[in-house]
């Protein structure tokens, strides 16, 4: 049974809010974003944004990625479940040829509006 992505993202937002740490712009916060090729990610993210800039889920994702917390595992688990639910339900988009889940596409889109943090990959 697929999980509704909106519910998942609301849960993520709640998790982030409950951390009480708020947004930290361009910090090396979300560990799953560490070490990625920031320029490549931004390129794909901008491609997604060009077609989906008004999505409400993007703000939720931005808030979540820009937050800081001591325990990211619940967020990672939820994102992983959201990705699988997207693939299960066929919610996939093509970014420069890459078939990715909506959740991955939104994660990439978040990078498009950020400057590379100090921990970004080369």
């Amino acid at each position, binding site marked *: 049974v697929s999980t509704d992505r909106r519910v998942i993202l609301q849960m993520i937002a709640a998790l982030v809010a409950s951390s009480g740490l708020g947004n930290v712009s361009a910090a090396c916060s979300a560990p799953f974003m560490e070490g990625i090729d920031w320029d490549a990610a931004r390129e794909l993210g901008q491609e997604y944004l060009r077609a989906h800039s008004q999505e409400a889920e993007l703000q939720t994702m931005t808030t979540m990625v820009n937050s800081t917390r001591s325990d990211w595992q619940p967020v990672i688990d939820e994102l*992983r479940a959201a990705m699988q639910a997207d693939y299960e339900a066929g919610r996939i988009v093509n970014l420069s040829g890459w078939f990715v889940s909506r959740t991955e596409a939104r994660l990439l889109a978040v990078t498009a509006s950020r400057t590379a943090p100090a921990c970004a990959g080369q």
Partner: protein
Amino acid sequence: MLIDAKELDADSTIEADVIIAGGGIAGIALARQLGDAGAQVAILESGGEAPETRTQSLYTGPTTLSGPGNDARNLDDYMLASRVRCFGGSGNAWGGKCAPLDPVDFEARDWIPHSGWPMSRAALQSFYDRASALLGLPSFGPTPDAMFGSADPLLAKRSSALAIRPRSYSACTGLAPGGSFARYKKAAADHPRIKVYLHANVTHIRMNADGRRVHALQVSELDGRKHTARARLYVLATGGIENVRLLLASNDVHRDGIGNHSAWLGRAFQGHTVISQDDSPELSLLRADSELARYNNQQRDTPHAVIGLSDAAQRRHRTVNFTATLTGLDKRMSGQPVVATLTQKLCGAAAVSRRGAYFMIEHTPNRDSRLTLLPDQRDELGMPRVRLDMRYGEIEFETFGPMIERFAAELGRLEVGRLRWSGRREQLIASMSSPSRHHMGATRMARSPRDGVVDEHCRVHGVDNLFVAGSSVFPTSGIANPTLTLLALTVRLGDHLVRGLRGRA
């Protein structure tokens, strides 16, 4: 015994119990099987022991490749380059890749016109086993699990939508070191009951007046001399194009060609093409390179894994067969596979293995995909040249896009990897490689003469003593390389002919 036809007296008569036109991999296997069973066999081979330009040029003819909504491509070197006309045939240039067809390939699928074999995959299993032995390979089991015997590292999470399609490589080819193929040929040449006639071109099938039996074969040499070959049984094993050419051109009794009673002769030609385009597909696997070691069979340079849509998924979605083959890292791939790197962290995968890939789709039987004679263009022997109009159908191109998306989604769901492909439907023909040497379908097998050229025993419908060996009898072509299947059918044909020679069939 090897005999050069040039050493025969003019107008000689060659006699045997069985005459096989064509000394390729199928003809040789059949001759050995029949010889071992006590039959006197003659192989009539057009070429010599090695390729010769003059003989090879007999193959010249135009080819086009096309599909709905795509620009057609001329492939005029294809006829010449995709075959080898000498003893051993195209086995001299074969890559050795072997695989059985999938069970679904044998089924009548109501969404694919003209699909369905007169036999199931299970009924062919014992013949696949014997063919594998001929090629020095372990048997392919009836299922991939039976072959590998352990959980597959790529599809560790069970999927009803995807299946690993095993492939092996035989050393019994002219390209492999070790002399296995030379021994394969020598076993026929040295056989006490087999005579291999070189430079002996079959140029006409002479029928009795009633058209129900072959009376003799006309054999021609390039210098103009002619001979006659007579036997109880005749087998055409000249390859998927020349079998058709001979049957179409022998039209003095059957005006439309022998076996063309239902206008199938030459039609439903199927080939295998690889879809990769210049900007090669990429699959970033959430796996370590070491996990792919099992696919590095036969000590080839890189792992060679083939993932396909499962039989069940094909039935469920009413698609054609489809595979993605993983190759080595494409040197053109640069930078970080950012999608997989991001996903790797979320999934906790240990590594990312970046691979090139190519796709293959089943070419379905299409009456407009066909071989026709060019009566105004003759080769040096006076035979009409042949044109190949190779066409893909609507169903292949309609289902390709959704198949790729479904395939990518399942790879994602299973956390196998992420796929990149940006080809478009109207560019599919341009994205295809030159077709492989797989020439299938144009003397298709069917129980009823209304539906094909040969029956389930590869006998030409309506002709008592004429048989066809080779991939031209395949009703559908799946994706698997055809040599193993054509050999399995040849072994099966051999059993049938032995029974016939002993008066029991």
